[in-house]
């Protein structure tokens, strides 16, 4: 896009490293938190409603006396897991279809481009809501709906990069020498596409996590007892004056997670 030459200190390597570190911290908490302090995210104890931290619950308790430590750890497993599954599916689909479109051209390409353009015109959350209404199971519906929304971006990136690379002298020489499509893809196309895919994957994961949290917050996403970031916020919102820390816990966790992903994406490209 633009010159990176006069760009900034927080840029590529340092920003990415910071992002990866933040994400590692969050993942470490989500995976190891419940191991370090054993407990149940669903166990209620109304005696401890909104109580402060203690040995069994280092982050205190929510309005129903459930341990915020364990609820948060499970919430931080759920959304990223859905997000990673959706991004992996969408990335694979986008990569295959994008390469196919650029390599084949003709009607295949035209149809795929028209489909992608049309999907891009529809708000992602709307598609997710419709798929959620059709599919049984909320997590499955989120995965399917989000994959449907996300593949377009991967498709567009792959197609653009592949088209430019396929006309390059290197690829033409490679083809003249008789190398197969698989070899051309591995040596010429993939190195061009891979860095783009990483950025797009980080942005896609962030968008997905935001979407799941936003739908949870307006009560059309995950259902009540499930620990989910947006849902936790809306549950704790009425008690923000009595227990501001309880509300801040999921808020800060969401912010940290998204900040890590934004930094990992490299900040600059859209």
């Amino acid at each position, binding site marked *: 896009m633009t010159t990176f030459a006069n760009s900034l200190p927080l840029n590529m390597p340092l920003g990415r490293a910071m992002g990866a570190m933040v994400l590692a911290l969050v993942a470490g908490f989500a995976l190891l938190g419940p191991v370090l302090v054993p407990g149940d995210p669903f166990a209620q104890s109304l005696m401890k409603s909104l109580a402060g931290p203690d040995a069994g619950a280092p982050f205190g308790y929510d309005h129903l006396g459930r341990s915020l430590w364990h609820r948060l750890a499970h919430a931080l497993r759920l959304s990223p897991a859905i997000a990673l599954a959706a991004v992996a599916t969408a990335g694979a689909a986008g990569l295959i279809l994008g390469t196919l479109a650029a390599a084949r051209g003709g009607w295949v390409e035209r149809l795929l481009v028209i489909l992608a353009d049309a999907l891009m015109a529809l708000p992602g959350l709307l598609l997710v809501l419709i798929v959620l209404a*059709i599919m049984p199971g909320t997590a499955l519906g989120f995965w399917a709906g989000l994959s449907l929304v996300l593949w377009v971006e991967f498709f567009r990136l792959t197609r653009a990069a592949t088209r430019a690379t396929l006309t390059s002298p290197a690829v033409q020489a490679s083809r003249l020498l008789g190398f197969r499509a698989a070899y051309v893809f591995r040596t010429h196309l993939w190195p061009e596409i891979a860095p783009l895919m990483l950025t797009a994957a980080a942005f896609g994961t962030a968008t997905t996590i935001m979407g799941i949290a936003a739908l949870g917050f307006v009560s059309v996403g995950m259902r009540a007892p499930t620990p989910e970031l947006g849902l936790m916020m809306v549950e704790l919102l009425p008690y*923000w004056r009595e227990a501001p820390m309880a509300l801040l816990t999921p808020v800060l966790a969401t912010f940290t997670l998204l900040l890590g992903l934004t930094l990992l994406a490299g900040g600059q490209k859209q």
Partner: protein
Amino acid sequence: MNILISRLAQAATVALLVGAATFAMMRSLPGDAAWRIAAGRYGYDNVNTAAADAVREELGLGGHWFPAFMQWMGDLLRFDFGVSLVSGQPVIAEIGHQLGASLWLALAAIGLSLLIGPPLGILAGLRAGGWLDRGLLVVSTGVKAIPQFLMALILILILSVQLGWLPAAGYGAGRHFILPALALALGLAAVNARIARDAMASIAAMPFYQFAQWKGLSRRQVLWRHGLRNVSVPLLTYLGLQFVMLVEGVVVIESIVGWPGIGHALVHAVFARDVPMVQGTALMLGLGFVLVNALIDLAVARIDPRGAR
């Protein structure tokens, strides 16, 4: 001309997709749609089998899917969205009523974001690497990591609950606009500012820009005559793409502050399985995106004739 034809193809595909998706939704909803719709009409306490059967009879919910699909798409192509299953009002009338509220909110958000983002971005881009540039990068990265609903939550807690300056929710007076528009605008501005900054930095480094300064124009004149028009091209293009993000934001924010707009209606329609309303709103939003981007294509071609093919 080419631009318009490809946009028309896009609009047609959008209509087809929305039609197919909402038809699939109508058909494959788990549970008895007739019961759900009857519950939406008469309230959950007043539904019985007779009411559900009456709804099934009235809406023709039995039968084979193919003729129903053809009829469905035929109605769609004639812009006959039918009546809302819940309120019984024509969908067109309901949407016309709600679209206005959303449109004003979206326009306020865009206007506000353009007041905040690009000026900061241009100032930062004129001195790439300066303290404003670095500060802006940190702030915009941080703001981008805050989802819009969270931004609304933070603003509500600070501005209306703690300070008591603005109403937390509601619709009608001008002061109700400020909070939701600001919540949307800050997220947009964070990205706007980066786009403007990158564009400005690359243009300020170009030979023609430096020549304009060498020949003795003041900084202000150079920016005004040679800078802004070039910066506006990527900014406008991006604004068109952001429209979808804005619409998503509007859907969520409207639900939070109780804004009687199209997003609020959409969430309720999905809840009550009011498929004609879902179809109407989805189609309206999709075609809106195509229209906005077609206009932006034309405007960009006007501002920057070099790209015309």
